């Protein structure tokens, strides 16, 4: 699948934003601190930026509001509805922190749950597509949710440090979430490597009974929408290296520096936590790029890919 930058940015940024919002909603930070207020704003900026990025790949973005109508059947529509609805508790929580130095526990909890549901809907857009076997697994929403959670904890660790104190258990929770996220991702990659394709040129043409089916000629000499959108293969060659790089930058590095930050002075800890976030962001972007670039679409059975 073609890794469109707008979609990669959308799911990475909104995943981080929702993860941070979950942690703020659960009350991990003191609402009166400037760092916490900044965290509220950053969460909203990440979520809004991600949603805006997602409209960049639309052919007719002026009609995007229509995407809120088909929540009964479409995961994309459900995600849109949830994203809009989730702004209500998130804005209320941010308002309470920014202007009243207080936390609304129930609103925060509701916001946290709605954030998780929104991330789940995002993942299900991909996981529900049987034509893309790599995505069509419960491991896909598991990865999206765990990455969002891990990103939220890494960000919260950073803001806790900025606020003056990083408690050991936030760092430990962060390391656990990072471990869980990358374990799920490696299980996802392992499934991708070992699965037998459900659709083959033989089943796509129905001619497997006669013999081995091989594409002889494409319909047209040049590329078309389908081959551009679904025939992306560049990553497969480097997938192993990139997945190691992503895990090192987004999993191992943040875990180590988070633990180091708990035993270092505030100044050093801020640097460590920022480094943890930078590493996680880079690793997530690589992971999300691979998510698209590695996935093979069933239609490629008709295009010899």
């Amino acid at each position: 699948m073609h890794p469109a930058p707008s979609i990669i940015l959308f799911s990475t940024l909104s995943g981080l934003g929702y993860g941070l919002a979950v942690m703020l909603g659960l009350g991990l930070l003191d609402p009166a601190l400037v760092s916490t207020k900044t965290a509220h704003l950053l969460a909203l900026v990440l979520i809004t930026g991600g949603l805006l990025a997602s409209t960049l790949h639309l052919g007719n973005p002026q009609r995007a509001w229509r995407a809120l109508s088909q929540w009964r059947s479409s995961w994309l529509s459900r995600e849109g509805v949830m994203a809009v609805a989730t702004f209500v508790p998130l804005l209320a929580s941010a308002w309470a922190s920014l202007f009243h130095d207080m936390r609304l526990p129930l609103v925060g909890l509701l916001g946290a749950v709605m954030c998780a549901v929104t991330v789940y809907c995002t993942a299900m857009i991909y996981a529900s597509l049987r034509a893309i076997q790599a995505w069509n697994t419960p491991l896909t929403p598991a990865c999206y949710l765990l990455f969002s959670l891990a990103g939220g904890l890494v960000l919260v660790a950073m803001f806790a440090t900025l606020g003056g104190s990083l408690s050991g258990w936030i760092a430990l929770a962060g390391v656990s979430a990072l471990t869980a996220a990358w374990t799920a991702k490696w299980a996802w990659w392992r499934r991708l490597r070992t699965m037998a394709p459900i659709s083959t040129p033989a089943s796509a043409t129905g001619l497997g009974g006669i013999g081995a089916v091989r594409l002889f000629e494409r319909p047209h000499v040049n590329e078309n929408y389908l081959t551009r959108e679904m025939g992306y293969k560049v990553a497969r060659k480097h997938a192993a290296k990139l997945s190691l790089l992503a895990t090192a930058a987004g999993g191992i590095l943040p875990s180590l520096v988070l633990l180091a930050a708990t035993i270092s002075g505030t100044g050093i800890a801020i640097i460590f936590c920022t480094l943890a976030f930078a590493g996680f962001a880079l690793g997530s972007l690589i992971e999300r790029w691979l998510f698209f670039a590695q996935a093979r679409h069933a239609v490629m059975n008709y295009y010899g890919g």
Partner: protein
Amino acid sequence: MTLLPTTRPPKKLGLVIDLDVCVGCHACVISCKEWNTGGYGAALSDQDPYGADVTGTFLNRIHTFEIVPEGGEIVGEAGDARIVHFPKSCLHCDDAPCVTVCPTGASYKREEDGIVLVDEDKCIGCGLCAWSCAYGAREMDLAAGVMKKCTLCVDRIYNETLAEVDRVPSCVRTCPANARHYGDLADPSSNVSILVAERGGFDLMPEQGTRPVNKYLPPRPRDRLADKAMPLAENSDGAKGFFAWLDGVLDRI
């Protein structure tokens, strides 16, 4: 509404494509583009139409496959390998995932005849329906920014201003080899249902769970070239009748 019809459509209009007959001339591709670029919805645009990198929107494309049986080698040598031309357009699936994934309600399946259509005024061009289709039946038009797909020539088949013979999809009307058949696949006595029953019509990728309406007819078994060896020009063994006499006369001269 992008929920699929809850009642079974009384009619299931669709195509039956005969892979034994298709000669791969691409006439249906061109007639489809010609009819549909001026008919239902936005035109089927081309990008860089006169340049080196021409590309465009098509609702019907012909792929060509080589089928090599076990022990078969190169086409023509072993005699068993064969070329099959493979026309492909929307299959108007009963369980069409392209319909249910649509976030706007632009994509829908008609209750009266099962045709899957796009209401282009509602389409935001997100492309998710094209992703959901295992068959590659949907292509985004890059000029209009909306999703295009086979309409089963809905603006021909019910069009009473056309002569009755023309009230079939453009590809069916055009095919010079009669490889494409149109009819109601819900009616067991229709021409297409009889073809499917008699020739063993099959679904593409049944494992995708889409229950396509369109069916494909398999290529008929072919005689092995080796069994039908023709006498070589250098060899007159086995000549009969007039040629045996001529062979003898020429030998004696």
